[in-house]
């Protein structure tokens, strides 16, 4: 599993959770908050992505990550 694949999984989860999301806007530099995900949505996106990656990381550890790219990198480091 590489970072692009993790990004792709996250994007799928985002579309699932945010039906009005403009898929073109999803990039590593964008934050989920700016894409319209509230705090519960963000936890859901990360939880669902972790579920697919078979990872169990406490959600509080994602609190300081600034954008989608940082989340992808953090997940990748913990694979």
């Amino acid at each position: 599993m590489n970072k692009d694949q993790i990004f792709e999984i996250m994007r799928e989860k985002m579309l699932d959770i945010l039906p009005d999301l403009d898929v073109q806007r999803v990039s590593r530099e964008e934050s989920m908050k700016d894409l319209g995900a509230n705090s519960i949505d963000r936890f859901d996106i990360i939880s669902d992505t972790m579920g697919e990656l078979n990872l169990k990381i406490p959600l509080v550890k994602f609190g300081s990550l600034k954008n989608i790219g940082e989340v992808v990198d953090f997940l990748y480091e913990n694979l």
Partner: protein
Amino acid sequence: MKTSSSASSYSFRHFHPVVVTGIGVAGAAAVGAATFEQVLREGRSSVGYLTGMAYPNGKPLIGAEAEARELQVGFQRYAPGLSRTAGRLFKISGKSVQASSVAAAEAWQQAGLEERSLNHERIGIIVAGSNISPAVSYSAYKEYGEQPELLHPRYALSYMDTNQIGVLSEMFGICGEGMTVGGASASGNAAILRASQWIQLGLVDVCMVVGAMADLSPLELQGYLNIGAYGGSGFEGAPKQACRPFDRRHEGFILGQTSACLILECASSAADSGAEVLATVIGGAAALDGHSLSNPSEDGQVRTMKEALRRAGLPTSSIDYINAHGTSTPLGDLTELASIRRVFGEHLGRVRINSTKALTGHCLYAAGVVEAASVIIQMKGGFLHPQINLEEPVSREHYFATQKAEAADFTYALSNSYGFGGINTSIIFKKGLC
């Protein structure tokens, strides 16, 4: 201004009639009101076994369990008419919320609320039940036990009964008043009564009343076993015979997982819309016994049935049919029959009685709403559903339904629901419009 006095002057006749324009059913008994009607006509029991639970002797616990897959299929039918977020809300919700949403969507569609241009601030929601989904907490506790930080943050929302209100309001865009109404096994009736009062007072024009499916954890079920209230241990290998209200071999209640929804509305709102009126809520009452235990009280039940009749402005002789609380619990069944005898006296011989729980199991919080659906479907369809498993009635005076469906023309029906803690409720429905 009306003031209270020693005798209540509240009467349903002082207000615009409250009518039922939509019915939805979702769970073990049936997914869909039309299927439920077939189940009632054929006297088909939905009782089987509850996954992962056992009697003290290790044999699997009897009960009617809702299938998640069937709820999912049911939901797909209605999803296009709901909010854009409805699909996701359904997916992330527990089984009880899922059943509520399927039942609600069916009732909503039948009442034509999708097409009607109603002000959604004039629509309310009442969800019947409290401590609805302890199974949600029970499974979250496993995550917590592994590592507290792994507990999903959504748990802070989903453990609450009022999550049902939030989810339904978002799915249907409902913006009037909303609350849960708890009354143990009488929750369903208590919710219908409260919704009727909201409409009578003009607080809302339409109210969605959802009887929430109890999603119990092994703790609650073990509690029922330990208190001796749960039945079925003598029916190993024959689960469909385990729930037998008013039969000599009744042992205790059998859990049923079915949710139901009624759309109640002011008769004038229904008339404006052209929605078909299925029944009228013509009277009803609730009263306490003044004790905290599980045993029923004849006095409390008699008082409640009499007050329901008084509020409806009807003589006892007008009631054709009683959908009994009838849980298949020895003391409960005998107490209710004694109460009915006291209220109906000389008319006892002509009032038909059945208990839908023989087919559905005891749907706890949802029971009152499931049974209201059963009453209305029978009145409208002109039949009395069979009382399966009633082989040796505990009373020869009462005029019970038989083993086969019968044609019947009922105008007024009484539905009883009683809850632990001495909570008594009775509702009277009239076929069609008042």
